[in-house]
């Protein structure tokens, strides 16, 4: 099976976040970037099924030059090839515009199955991959916690998360877009050999014209949404903060839990 997997590079959630001067996005200087959490699980799932079916994995990401690092990591883990949608026209889009570009790249590459994450840890639209499925005219499933490719790739048994600790199991016809949820598997680590091999693997950078795309459907121009401003939320009443070294703070907290909150 030829499996395409879409990964997004996002700011490390542990990073100290600062709003950029224009107020519209983060100041990306000094920011550390990582592969989106659920996308890492998608990569693992793709590699597993490529191994089981004797196929290969193509890893795709839309983003600026820094994204190359994420693609190299995917190649080091075992993907055969990467596609980097780095052209300026692709950048700055919402789920709609991003999906147009990803779908075209997938179509151009040919795939029997597309794996993605469920939600990006930065903008978190939870929509991009379903829109990709729409463009391809394929079924999709969001929040997938189990995948079993059946009948030599004709169908798949999918376990999907519902709320309150329940799962739903159903069958889909392939090709499909499977949107993986964190926790579906145990992502592997890259080996030194894998990292060395990755240096020689190809990263294609198709332009919009090469994918038959009109720049007006891409990036900010092709988006429905515009981010006007980002800000730290109003902290509301906020917590009563307890200061001091660990021992003093712990003692004071216990006292408050006993006498003030009366929960101890």
């Amino acid at each position, binding site marked *: 099976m030829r499996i395409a997997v879409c990964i997004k590079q996002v700011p490390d*959630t542990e990073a100290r976040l600062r*709003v950029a001067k224009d107020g519209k996005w983060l100041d990306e200087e000094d920011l550390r970037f990582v592969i989106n959490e659920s996308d890492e699980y998608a990569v693992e799932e793709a590699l597993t099924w490529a191994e089981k079916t004797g196929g290969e994995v193509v890893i795709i990401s839309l983003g600026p030059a820094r994204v190359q690092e994420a693609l190299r990591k995917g190649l080091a883990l075992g993907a055969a090839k990467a596609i980097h949608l780095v052209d300026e026209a692709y950048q700055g889009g919402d*789920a*709609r515009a991003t999906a147009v570009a990803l779908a075209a790249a997938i179509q151009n590459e040919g795939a029997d199955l597309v794996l993605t994450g469920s939600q990006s*840890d*930065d*903008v*978190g*639209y*939870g*929509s991009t991959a*379903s*829109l990709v*499925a*729409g*463009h391809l005219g394929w*079924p999709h499933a*969001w*929040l997938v916690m189990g995948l079993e490719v059946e009948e030599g790739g004709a169908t798949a*048994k999918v376990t*999907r*998360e*519902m*709320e*309150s*600790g*329940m*799962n739903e*199991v*159903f*069958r889909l016809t392939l090709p499909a877009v499977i949107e993986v*949820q*964190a*926790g579906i598997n145990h992502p592997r680590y890259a080996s030194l050999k894998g990292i060395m091999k990755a240096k020689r693997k190809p990263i294609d950078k198709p332009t919009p014209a090469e994918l038959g795309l009109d720049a007006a459907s891409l990036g900010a121009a092709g988006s429905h*949404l*515009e*981010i*006007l*401003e*980002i*800000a*730290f*939320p109003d*902290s*509301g009443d*906020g*917590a*009563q*903060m307890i200061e001091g070294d*660990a*021992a003093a*703070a*712990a*003692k004071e*907290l*216990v006292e408050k*839990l*006993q006498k003030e*909150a009366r929960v*101890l």
Partner: protein
Amino acid sequence: MSEQVWVVLQHREGKLHRMSKEAIAAGQRLAGEIGGTVSGVLLGSGLGDLVAQASAFDLATLYTVDDSALQDYNPGAYVAALTPAIREQAPAFVVFPHTYQSVDYFPRLGQALDAALVPEVIGFENGADGLIWQRPILGGKLQARVRVKTSGTVLLSVQSGAFPADGAAAGQADVEPLPSVPSGLTSDREILEVQQVGDDQVDLTKADVIVAIGRGVGGADKVESLRELAKVLGADIGASRPVIDNGWLLDADGNVERERQIGSSGQTVAPKLYIAAGISGAIQHLVGMKGATCIVAINKDATAPIFNIAHYGIVGDLHEIVPALTEAVAAVKG
């Protein structure tokens, strides 16, 4: 004609989903804001008593689709049923509860209509440039204000807790079949079964005290100090999702205790005391625990959103604070 707001109602086992009422509350507020009317849409098979439940709100019309292809949720039939009516009636807004069901299909509906999507709305304001939507980004650490710059119907999903259900006004809606539903709707999923995740032996919903472990704990080998704190408190252990996903919380047999996950895809708890250690406070976690009477947050990042809903907070390394807390509790309880 005044502008219309539609609210698509979710249900399960003959009952309206809690968040459907929140979506109605949001729809009513939105209709008030734009001077329009609000209607409900109910899809399913054998709707029966659900029609009575859903029409008891202040809605201009309750549109229904009762079709056997909608017996089990599936995106294909849902999108096919809704698309023509929305295209023809062109409501200004269609509101969905931000549930695992709505988010599964509402992007496909948006695509079929080429309508704008605004997922996970937590608030809105009506400014000079029209409606501006608020939504959480970066795990709730920040919020974005976004605008739809194109015209046409806007589909939006409203996050749990943002528009309280008790704000939904009661009334009596006229019930009508949704117009233009195509005949021969077909499901694009063959449903095989519904399963419970993990075992059902662990019931945190009745716990009095919970010590909840977050990714900040840093590894499976580091949870012991939290178990000790739980022991002196007589507390149950809970965890955020990444702790479970990473396999850091194991039972005596080495199995991952997924049933101890708290949040939208885990348990919803309401203990007297909830101690969140190394948990940032993403919305999917908060929905599972914000009903706790007293919330204590321990986090090394003073800007972590968990501090916005906690009652008491300590900024610092949990590996220093938790053992100190265990000692302090033992001292008064011993």
